[in-house]
């Protein structure tokens, strides 16, 4: 546990990263989910007033899904940061993989929100009293871009790079 020099530290971190690769991924994904939900809530609900708290046209299953999703993302935001602290404590934090998870989680939330919650369950729409199509297209394209960035990062960190000199 006691590292004597930087080379040994990097070696320990490299080994631990491999051991806790999945935890890095999940911490990133959960934080990404929480972050996306938080941005959605503050920017679109509270600041822009584009979304409604409840627009009365929602199905019951839509309300249940929304409630569960909100509760889960609220829990995930906090839990993911404790997972992050746990990775730091174990000297196993892997920024690139964590960021991969972050982008993937954010994109997944955005896509789920834009397709299932908005369109299928009709929870609420992005805006009201405007032509919704450009908003829907932009919303889901952004989601796909985030997912692709996350996917590339996760692919690139699927195994550890060969270390030289340590």
């Amino acid at each position, binding site marked *: 546990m*006691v590292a004597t020099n930087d080379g040994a530290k990097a070696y320990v971190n490299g080994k631990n990263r491999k051991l806790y690769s999945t935890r890095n991924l999940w911490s990133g994904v959960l934080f990404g989910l929480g972050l996306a939900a938080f941005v959605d809530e503050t920017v679109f609900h509270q600041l822009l007033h584009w979304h409604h*708290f409840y627009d*009365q046209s929602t199905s019951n299953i839509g*309300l249940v899904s929304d*409630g*569960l999703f909100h*509760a889960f993302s609220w829990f995930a935001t906090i839990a993911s940061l*404790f997972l992050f602290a*746990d990775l730091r404590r174990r000297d196993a934090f892997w920024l690139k993989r964590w960021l991969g998870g972050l982008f993937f989680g954010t994109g997944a939330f955005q896509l789920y929100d834009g397709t299932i919650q908005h369109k299928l369950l009709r929870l609420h729409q992005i805006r009201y009293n405007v032509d919704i199509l450009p908003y829907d297209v932009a919303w889901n394209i952004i989601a796909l871009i985030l997912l692709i960035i996350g996917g590339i990062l996760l692919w690139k960190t699927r195994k550890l790079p060969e270390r030289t000199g340590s």
Partner: protein
Amino acid sequence: MEHGLHSEVTAAEFGVALLMLTAIVIYMNASVVSGKRNRKWPLYRIFLWILGVLAIGAVCIGPLASRAHSDFTVHMFNHLLIGMLAPLLMVLSSPVALLLRSLSVASARKVAGILKSRLVYFMGHPITAAILNTGGLFVLYTTDLYFLMHDYFLLYVLVHFHLFAAGYLFTASIIYIDPVAHRVGFLYRAIVLVTALAGHGLLAKLIYADPPETVLKSQAEAGSMLMYYGGDAIDAVLIIVFCYQWFISARPRQTVPEGGFK
């Protein structure tokens, strides 16, 4: 009638104030007794207990209590105080551990025996507690109960007692501050917590759309949003404490480095 109801409430208010004072005095006395025998009881816990008692007091006596009858938004604020904040503060002040420490060994054993009983296990199980807590709220706001409790004083008292007791039971079943005889795993409790939180948010939206009878639309909307976001704020503290306990319990075992500790 109006006058009669008023004096009845005043007598009740006096009773509540007396109960509150008693609760604080007993707790402080126990902390002194325990401090003499064991380590000093932490000051912050006494502080949390007093805050918790005061939060209950604010709901039962004074301007908040009288305005809650006519204003649904104030009622919802009181609901957050008595059903969520006061229980959280009081659970964090660890009254059961203090009780066990301040009693004589024989009495403490008896209390510990009760804590280990099947009834306490059943009542204190996260799922039972969540059903009593969130389920109780559904009954209150989706039936005529909310409407009725403003006509019958005893019902009003009972409902508020239930709000507090169920809130306390639920908080204590999720975060283990006091000694717990039958522990339930972290993941299990996390799932119950998320489900209960979802139920609370869902109910808030239902109230927004379909408030109890006699509640004004504007007040129902403001009240339900207060319930939703205020609930999130208090739940955030609950989640942080829960995750912190998980974080501590999952700490890596200290391994002996080559060549021993330096």
